[in-house]
């Protein structure tokens, strides 16, 4: 299937994606074959249902949130470009990229963009703030049933209070960056795509 899939992808399209996402040619064709195998409707786009068919995602506590992250606002379909754009967030930062001057637009896999991706998972209403409720929702997803609302509430309070700098009882993106500044996000938000 992989070989057939690559033929369906036009060269210029690959070039564009390469430019935008930094994936290599072989990575793109490989991921395109994955994309096509997910695409049960064979219409060149993926719907939420296509994602939800992935069995492992069903048991991932944040699965739905992550699926949502693939869909641009108010859209139900994602094409291969969009698919790759999202995946590009998780491309490891390579050495030659580190020293690149920042005049060009920031690559998708920059530290900030990685963090932004994570931030958006929390920030449901897209107001660029993680409110207590939003945090609670994610926490609830990540913990089991054995933890009470009060316990979770105190965790959330503590979390927000630790991060909150301007006293608005919510975490802005800047505050989010700040609390994670000591974390090796580049490594912890990257996966290795096969070459």
């Amino acid at each position, binding site marked *: 299937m992989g070989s057939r899939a690559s033929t369906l992808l036009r060269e210029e399209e690959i070039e564009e994606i390469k430019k935008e996402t930094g994936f290599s040619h072989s990575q793109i064709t490989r991921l395109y074959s994955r994309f096509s195998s997910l695409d049960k409707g064979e219409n060149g786009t993926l719907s939420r249902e296509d994602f939800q068919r992935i069995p*492992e995602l069903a048991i991932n506590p944040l699965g739905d949130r992550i699926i949502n992250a693939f869909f641009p606002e108010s859209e139900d379909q994602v094409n291969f470009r969009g698919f790759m754009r999202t995946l590009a967030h998780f491309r490891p930062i390579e050495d030659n990229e580190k020293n690149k001057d920042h005049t060009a637009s920031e690559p998708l896999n920059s530290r900030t963009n990685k963090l932004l991706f994570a931030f958006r998972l929390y920030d449901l209403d897209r107001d660029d703030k993680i409110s207590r409720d939003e945090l609670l929702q994610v926490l609830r997803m990540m913990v089991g049933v054995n933890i009470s609302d009060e316990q979770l509430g105190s965790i959330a309070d503590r979390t927000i209070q630790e991060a909150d700098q301007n006293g608005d009882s919510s975490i802005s993106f800047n505050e989010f960056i700040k609390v994670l500044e000591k974390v090796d996000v580049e490594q912890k938000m990257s996966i290795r795509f096969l070459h």
Partner: protein
Amino acid sequence: MPPSLGHSLQSGLAGLGVSGGHGPPGLVSPGSTGEQVKQVQPEVAEEEGSHHGGGFKIVQWEWSYVQTPYIISVWLLLASLAKILFHLSQRFTTVVPESCMLILLGLVLGGVVLLAHEKQLYQLEPGLFFLFLLPTIVGDAGYFMPSRLFFDNLGAITLYAVVGTLWNAFCTAFCLYGVKLLGVIDEKVDAGLMDFLLFGALISAVDPVAVIAVFEEVHVNDTLFIIVFGESLLNDAVTVVLYKVYMSFVEVGPANVGTAECMKGLVSFLVVSLGGTLVGLVFAVILSFTTRFTKKVRIIEPLFVFLLVYLAYLTAELCSLSAILSMTFCGIGANKYVEANISQKSRTTVKYTMKTLASIAETIIFIFLGISAMDKTKWAWDTGLVACTLVFILLFRAMGVIGQTWVLNRFRLVPLDRIDQVVMSYGGLRGAVAFALVVLLDGEKVKAKDYFVATTIVVVFFTVMFQGLTIKPLVKWLKVPRSTNRKPTINEEIHERAFDHILTAVEDIAGLQGYHHWRDKWEQFDKKYLSKLLLRKSVYQKSELWEAYQKINMRDAISVIDQGGNVLTSRLSLPSMASRSSFPEVTNVTNYLRENGSGVCLDLQVIDNVPGARVEEDSETHHFLTGNLYKPRRRYQSHYSRHFMPAGEQERQEREVFQRNMRSRMENFKTSRHKRHKKDRSQKKHRGSDTREQEGNEKPRRNVSWQDKDPVVVPVDSEMEDEREEEERSEKEEDIGITFVARKEEPPKQRPQSVPAALEACDSPSMASPTCGERFLPWKVGAGSLPPCVSVEATKVIPVDLQQAWNQSISSLESISSPLNLNPNPRVTALSPSSRPVSSPPCSFSQSEKEQQKEEEEALSEQQQEEQPLMSVRPPAPPLSSTPGERRRNPCVYLRSLVTVPPAGNTETHSRGPTQL
């Protein structure tokens, strides 16, 4: 005691009992250890004679009886003292690694013995080393291995351990053989290819002992450390197999070695490594499973850990599998479950004991290495061999690292850069394992054994001393990222967990069966089956995140308190505020403390008024506390340091100190209370006022101290607590009629100062509550304060009516903060004409007394200080129990953290106290 240990230690000591011991070396008779013992010997004989003669000797010298343990103890003591000595100078030890110093000390000792005896009495016995010294170090390393880090880098570690070691072994061996053929190595070195292969096998393995000793002082970043360290542990299988295979080759003779033998070697490698790992994992399961059921026998929990981990080592050794692998994996595998199952105290015990043992074993190894080196008879020097070996091991280590890293970096998410490679090459230290193996060689079959011994010693010394000495400057010079021993914040805990989920999901979406995919699979499996099987039910149901949260919370609270800060005002306390008013929070605190096994005590016995102090006094107190409370000496150490507990541990330690203090204070209080009982009369005299007397009789007061500003955790041991409960019970029966405030003994000044606005407030809720007659444990959480911790042992039963108690305490709190509530104390009024609230101490003093007290204040401040941290509040007496005796029934201790701002009513009440008189 195994003979080897006894013997070696004894002869070792003989080496130390320097001055003129003439006894035959190593002889197991008393007297070989120097003059002192020599004097003794006749006595021993005499003693024997006396047995026959029937005479009775008052003092007998039983040297032969205590000899072995005595010598071992003295040895351990010496080693420990040596450590103290090295650490006397801070600046010195930062430059010179301890292992160097120990080896030097060993050399000196060995030299002295050599001068005295012409013959080295001692050398590192392989039996002693492999059966006792090595397992303690490996056990510690395995059990405290950061498992996530280890498995994250498992691929790299395994590659370096297997391929790297093989590469080193073969290249070194063949090249040595080559230079031998070229004639660089002297003709006297009678060694063939097989001998060199054997030698190459034992000299090529990176040594865990040396790596730990050197790297823990260097603090390179975690990834780098885990790779070198993991390699040193995992290459044991390779070393063992190569060593054994070549031994058999040497024995059968090189001519008879065919492909069949080589295949056997390969199979043997698989069996030894996988078998060793399997044995370790089996023992890990057994160990975890066992600790599920130790609830009733907490005290021997640590013993299970030690025994089973050690048994894993011995069992592997028994089946001639890789013992180090077995022990390492037993430790790694069991750690998670065991730590969750056993109590906090056991955890601390395990940690300390393991670190102590490992540290002392390491010390002994290095000292003995030094001593062994001074044995001329074992040596045969050949410059060519030594020089070539040194060059080759360094060269091939570097080549191996570079080559493997190049391969690895194609697969690694975070490539190892050039600097990492330099440190890894340079950090390939050889150590005691190589030495013990070379000593084990059979001199009959390996003709060149003496040369090999000398070479090994030089190599070990060179790597440990020269490389150990220079690696620190090198790391500094290369600007290798150091490890930061930083505890994750709650945000990091949460978000990193989220990251893991995200990455797993993305891998699944991208159709990659990557690392995260499998890790997630494993975690699912672990959760579904393993944890269910190996964890206690109570533990299993807990959320990791919640645990992490609690840990962090506790840590912060403790550190704030330790620094004399105010939990209340600090931002740390805020999170709990939101849910403070809900009952479950209390249970959480309880759970939490129960889990942590420490924290604050709710002491059932200490009950008294809280002397509400004036604001100035409060601030005074605050400053005093700030100045005098334990200040954490923060010297952050590496995670892997055996010599120092990581910072978290330190804090725990401090907490324990804190607990101890508190306990002693309570003890003090207790005694003073009893004294008071006796002093009843005299006190009455002192007071001279009828009303006061009456008041005293009215109700037994408890010593209480609390501060508005500085809530302090009052920790009590669980035993302590039991004791107290016990005591309380007995007191209920015996103590009826004690009517004096415990505090009385002390200069009265304290009481007047403390005008109990808060106290009164506390009382009032009790009035309101019909249930106050019942025994309850009100857990008081001050408004806006972090719930102080209450130390309750896991086994402690929480009173059923906690809810009630909670309600009460909440209402009392509310009343505290509302000035309006001041002194609506009908009960008191009914009891005493003066209508003083029972619990308000100031009432019992006249104004003049009060002034006097004030004068005394300064002198007494310290004493006061001591009392203040104890924040317990006299539980409100039930209205129905108006007789003094009955009232005693409800002693409760509140854990109090107090309102940030002293209630407005404070001053008011304060002034009101005297007027009431």
